[in-house]
């Protein structure tokens, strides 16, 4: 299957105090039509930076222009002019953000903000734009869309605003939707509604979704494939079933184990010692090795390649434990089983 969007060796750096630090390191993945790829990771893993790099809306300074390739229908987005890129944003790739209250302009009505999108991109007049906006708001199931058009953002609840954001991202029928923590700011009942809406819209329109989240529950509900990120690197990639059934990287395993689970005694949750490395203090070698309980001497130096699991070749892991050719001084099976 051909990928709609291919990210290849994407490297993004921030320049702080005259020194460039990697926030994304050699990141590659594919996004397919009608599928949802989830990027999961903790704070500082670079998952939002990935979205901002694809959209080319990185805060600059301190961000430097990304290196690598972002191929959309054969075009490298990183080679386009700013003018060409403006045609891609919104029209071909839509994006929704975590906090809808700060993503909308407080001094314009909902209607003005949505209609502007149609008038700029589609060259429509007010009436055409209004009709299109109302149809779109009906699609995202906002009650009384005609009246809501005249309201300012502060009048609407968080869940309603997120529906408006989704409407704005999808009104031009993009092929790709990037959703950066779309439900993190919402209550669990509203989250369930918004996730269902996103699923329904994806099914109807066949778009590809890049879902950025830290919530494993949202991943289980939404994703077809999952990329696990840590300190700007992809540590593991596989189908959602593979990730939940046979997480392979020690980081992913530890992350799953630390989820509150009522079969574990309170006070005995498995934890990952230490914390996520901060920018500029990345360890050499595998970024996870200082916290990894299986770390081996050669994990501390050099680049770790990706290994495919022999049982499931679509499942990639960036960890020496899965190197089939290495002669192991220790009993490897027992390490991984443990």
């Amino acid at each position: 299957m051909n990928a709609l969007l291919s990210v290849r060796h994407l490297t993004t750096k921030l320049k702080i105090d005259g020194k460039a630090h990697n926030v994304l390191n050699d990141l590659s993945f594919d996004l397919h039509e009608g599928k949802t790829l989830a990027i999961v990771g903790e704070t500082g893993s670079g998952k939002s930076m990935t979205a901002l790099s694809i959209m080319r809306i990185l805060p600059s300074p301190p961000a430097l222009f990304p290196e690598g390739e972002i191929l959309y229908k054969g075009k490298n987005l990183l080679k386009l002019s700013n003018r060409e890129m403006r045609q891609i944003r919104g029209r071909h790739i839509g994006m929704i953000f975590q906090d809808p209250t700060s993503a909308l302009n407080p001094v314009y009505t909902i209607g003005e903000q949505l209609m502007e999108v149609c008038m700029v991109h589609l060259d429509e007049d007010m009436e055409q734009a209004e009709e299109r906006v109302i149809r779109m708001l009906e699609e995202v199931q906002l009650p009384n869309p005609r009246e809501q058009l005249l309201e300012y953002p502060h009048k609407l609840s968080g869940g309603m605003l997120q529906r408006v954001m989704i409407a704005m991202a999808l009104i031009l029928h993009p092929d790709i939707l990037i959703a950066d923590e779309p439900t993190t700011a919402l209550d669990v009942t509203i989250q369930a509604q918004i996730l269902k809406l996103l699923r329904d819209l994806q099914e109807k329109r066949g778009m590809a979704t890049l879902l950025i989240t830290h919530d494993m529950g949202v991943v289980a509900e939404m994703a077809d494939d999952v990329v696990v990120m840590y300190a700007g690197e992809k540590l593991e990639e596989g189908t959602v079933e593979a990730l939940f059934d046979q997480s392979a990287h020690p980081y992913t395993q530890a992350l799953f184990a630390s989820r509150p689970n009522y079969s574990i005694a309170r006070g005995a949750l498995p934890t990952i010692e230490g914390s996520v490395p901060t920018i500029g203090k990345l360890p050499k070698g595998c970024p996870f090795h200082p916290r990894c309980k299986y770390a081996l001497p050669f994990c501390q130096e050099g680049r770790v390649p990706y290994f495919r699991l022999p049982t499931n070749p679509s499942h990639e892991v960036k960890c020496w434990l899965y190197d089939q050719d290495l002669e192991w001084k220790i009993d490897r099976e027992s390490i991984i089983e443990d």
Partner: protein
Amino acid sequence: MNQLLKIENLKKHFPVKRGLLGRTTRILQAVDDVSFDLEENEILGLVGESGSGKSTLARTAIRLIEPTSGKIFFQGEDFCKLSGKRLRQSRQKVQMVFQDPLSSLNPRKTILENVGEALLYHKLVENRDEQVAKVETIMEQIGMSKSAIDLYPHQFSGGQQQRISIGRAIAMEPKLIVCDEAVSALDLSVQAQILNLLYDLKKRLKLSYLFISHDLGVVRFFCDRILVMYQGKIVESGPAKELFENPKHPYTQKLLASIPRGHPRAKK
């Protein structure tokens, strides 16, 4: 077990003012006739959506906000009748840990001052040497290095900052700690560390927690008993396991049905 906190018919109403003259147009019943008990050594969960009144209930229950009406008994004493010195003494026994540790710690004070300031105020220590010694013991209890006491809050990670907030709370030798979304802003791996710490401290220091959270997975895992709050009222309460396995109130059922599945194959 002994009752630590008893709340009877607690109400907190806020007037909603509108217009130029600030006329009261309506009364918002943020906490509407709530009664519950919290026993010693108990972890009582409080769940509900934003705007349901969880935080207002918790703050009113410990008189950070004055209740409109109702009774609060803390360790058998009528908490609403206390004033002056007696109130300050009782307040020391109730501490709070907030969601965002960075904004709840004073950025211009070192960890020693942040954690140790109230020790002098409440005369738990006599002088500065004792203060330093006590804060160092607390640092050990919260799993941090003693040498960190001269640093400032921004020099720590989010998880460490939350440890420091917890340290500030236990410094007062409290009986009850109100945790208002205390683990909600933390990453999964850090959240596990803090939950373990809270449980460990509860056992060692014989604490009780009123644990507010919107994360139902965490609440089920961590709490003994749960109160479900909706529009200012407690609509259901019960032991954690029972409440999750057999929710009675329609709102609780709706809330539980909204929790994302734990596994992709468990999809609805």
